[in-house]
């Protein structure tokens, strides 16, 4: 990979533009070549018809979708057995982590090593440097890496989402009587990373309450492990952070849980399983085995009756390094809230692998809303390139899970409906935004 490479399409096949024309898909090209034989005549035909038209015409006589499917599912020998997967020690990574001690990787013939990593910037750099084959990332990170926001553009993918919900706004105990966000002017709040759902959800929540997240409060990126220490030292007033940090702040008597992220947007994605497009196309069998392991682990984690056993598996120092009771409270949803009450919210965190393209589109609207992306973008195309809904759907079917219908859906965030078909209109409907 050149140090200063041009933005390239994430399909891994060299051609101009950020997004493939249909004919650029390696399977499609192979089919065209098989049907029309020699290269010159194929080129002539494509020039005459345009690739898209040619593919459309061809799909009338050749079951192209089936060919793509067959290609994606072709069982073959693993290109490599030993894979390295980076993770950040938070409960969002539960499926990635538990798949190691509970044997989900081994069942696919993989010798996977899950490696604890110190921060999001490091996990991004180690992934781009190919020290990791795949990694736990915040859902917006593969999008940011693909379009080159905050790093050089490298085609990245989200083959599966890890968790939905499972975050919270935690405030220092001294603020327990200031529960209305309108009273938070001057607060210093932390999020794990600039390109995180946490950042976008906190900004969304504040803005809906009339607080400008750039003018009225200070939002800074603090690595999750440092959040509780900073809250104790009164460096910050609160954070929208991943668990176990919210529950840990309660456990240590430092803060209380103000609101679960589920009450801002029920079913929001948080962390993702990320892999480079190069790995996806370069080692397809290994990739699909890995994806099956992750999807199966995610399905297993989504069942409430398995949660206690999972908490036990991921608590030791090799994985999350947290007291087991803290993890149990998070995963079972029966938890102390830091205000003297026991709350019972079974879907405080849940696990669902399907990477809805509408998630990516929403993330892009927020990246644009807060000035992280300044140019015009093709929302749907980027979402389709980065979020591999088809692959995840196939793996879910194989694992005996129900395949979701479609690749986009609408959802409601704090009473406001998001329609993935009209991202620009959605973006312009917010009174508080940058640019």
């Amino acid at each position, binding site marked *: 990979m050149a*140090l200063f490479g041009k933005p390239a399409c994430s399909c891994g096949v060299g051609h101009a533009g950020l997004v493939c024309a249909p004919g650029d898909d390696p399977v499609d090209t192979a089919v065209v070549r098989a049907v029309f034989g020699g290269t010159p005549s194929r080129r002539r035909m494509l020039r005459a018809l345009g690739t898209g038209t040619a593919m459309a015409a061809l799909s009338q006589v050749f079951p192209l979708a089936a060919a793509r499917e067959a290609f994606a599912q072709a069982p073959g020998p693993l290109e490599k057995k030993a894979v390295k997967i980076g993770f950040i*020690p938070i409960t969002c990574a539960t499926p990635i982590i538990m798949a190691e001690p509970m044997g989900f990787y081994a069942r696919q013939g993989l010798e996977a*090593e*899950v*490696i*604890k*990593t*110190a*921060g999001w*910037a*490091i996990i991004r*750099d*180690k992934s*781009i*440097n*190919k*020290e990791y084959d795949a990694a736990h990332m915040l859902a917006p990170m593969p999008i940011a890496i693909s379009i080159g926001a905050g790093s050089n553009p490298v085609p990245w993918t989200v083959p599966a989402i890890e968790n939905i919900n499972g975050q919270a706004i935690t405030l220092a105990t001294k603020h327990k009587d200031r529960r209305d966000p309108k009273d938070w002017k001057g607060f210093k709040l932390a999020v794990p990373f600039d390109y995180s759902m946490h950042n976008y959800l906190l900004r969304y929540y504040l803005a809906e309450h009339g607080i400008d997240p750039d003018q009225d409060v200070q939002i800074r990126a603090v690595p999750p*492990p*440092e959040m*509780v*220490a900073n809250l*104790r030292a009164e460096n910050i007033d609160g954070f929208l952070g991943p668990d176990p940090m919210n529950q*840990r702040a*309660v*456990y*240590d*008597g430092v803060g209380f849980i103000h609101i679960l992220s589920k009450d801002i947007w029920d079913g929001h994605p948080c962390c993702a399983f990320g892999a480079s497009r190069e790995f996806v196309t370069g080692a397809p069998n290994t990739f699909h085995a890995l994806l099956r392991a992750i999807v199966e682990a995610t399905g297993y984690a989504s069942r409430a009756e398995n949660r206690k056993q999972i908490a036990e598996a991921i608590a*030791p*120092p*090799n*994985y999350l*390094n*947290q*007291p087991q*009771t803290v993890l149990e*409270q998070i995963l079972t949803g029966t*938890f*102390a809230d830091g205000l*003297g*009450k*026991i709350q019972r919210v079974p879907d405080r965190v849940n696990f669902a692998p399907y990477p809805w393209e509408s998630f990516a589109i929403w993330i892009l609207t927020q990246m644009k809303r807060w000035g992280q992306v300044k140019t015009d973008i093709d929302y749907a195309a980027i979402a389709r390139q980065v979020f591999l809904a088809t692959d995840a759907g196939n793996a879910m079917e194989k694992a005996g899970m129900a395949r979701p219908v479609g690749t986009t859906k609408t959802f409601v965030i704090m009473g406001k409906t998001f329609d993935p078909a009209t991202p620009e209109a959605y973006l312009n409907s917010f009174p508080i935004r940058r640019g």
Partner: protein
Amino acid sequence: MSGRIADLKAVMLSLLLFALFLGAWHLAVTGSGTAANVDPEYARLMGAAAMQGTSAMPGPVDIAVRLADLLAHPFYDRGPNDKGIGIQLAYSLGRVLLGFGLAVTLAIPLGFVIGTSPLLHKALDPFIQILKPISPLAWMPLALYTIRDSGKSAIFVIFICSVWPLLLNTAFGVASVRREWLNVARTLEVSRLRLAFRVILPAAAPTIMTGLRISIGIAWLVIVAAEMLVGGTGIGYFVWNQWNNLSIADVIIAILLIGLVGMALDQILGWIGRRLGYQE
């Protein structure tokens, strides 16, 4: 005789100060112990620090217990993210010796050249003065970006931070060899190579040794910061991993071990320096 008594007095005073420190520490962290009056089911979900009014800061007894625990199995290996304290220290020492070794192989010959040429010394001085005070944490993103390997980046950062004091000290030592000795050598028509190895190097050795001691101290300082950033293995990773768990006892133990190893490295170089020293 009186010297030995003074030494003994100093040791006694050291021990007394240490005992006082431990005593004050123990008293400071012993909490009031009044448990808050809450629902027992709620209390079961909370940590001891939050519920029993004890301090979150461990006392000296907690540290001793935990230290004995860690030292009982220093070399266990329970996967890539959980290894014994002995293995972690060995990884850190390995990285430091590599980075420091690189610094030595570059800085001593280069310092020698700079020291013998006042022109080069003046020309390079501004660069050295700018590069010298840069923190290892500032180098790390650049190293990761260009070297594209976290292990090598950590070693590079140790190298780049520990090379400057050694370079400056070598140059200074070489530049301040006494004129008369050089003149005598010249009168005796000693060859340039022989002049370098038999006159200048021995004369500059004490200054170079001081440079080495400063450099290894810096290398050891840098390793903790570098490993906290790149993670994986090493005593810096150990500190980070335990901080993640808010386990202050382990962090204090790591601080203690880092100090002891740093002192040992310094003493070893000091001992070599005394062997190389000479009396005029």
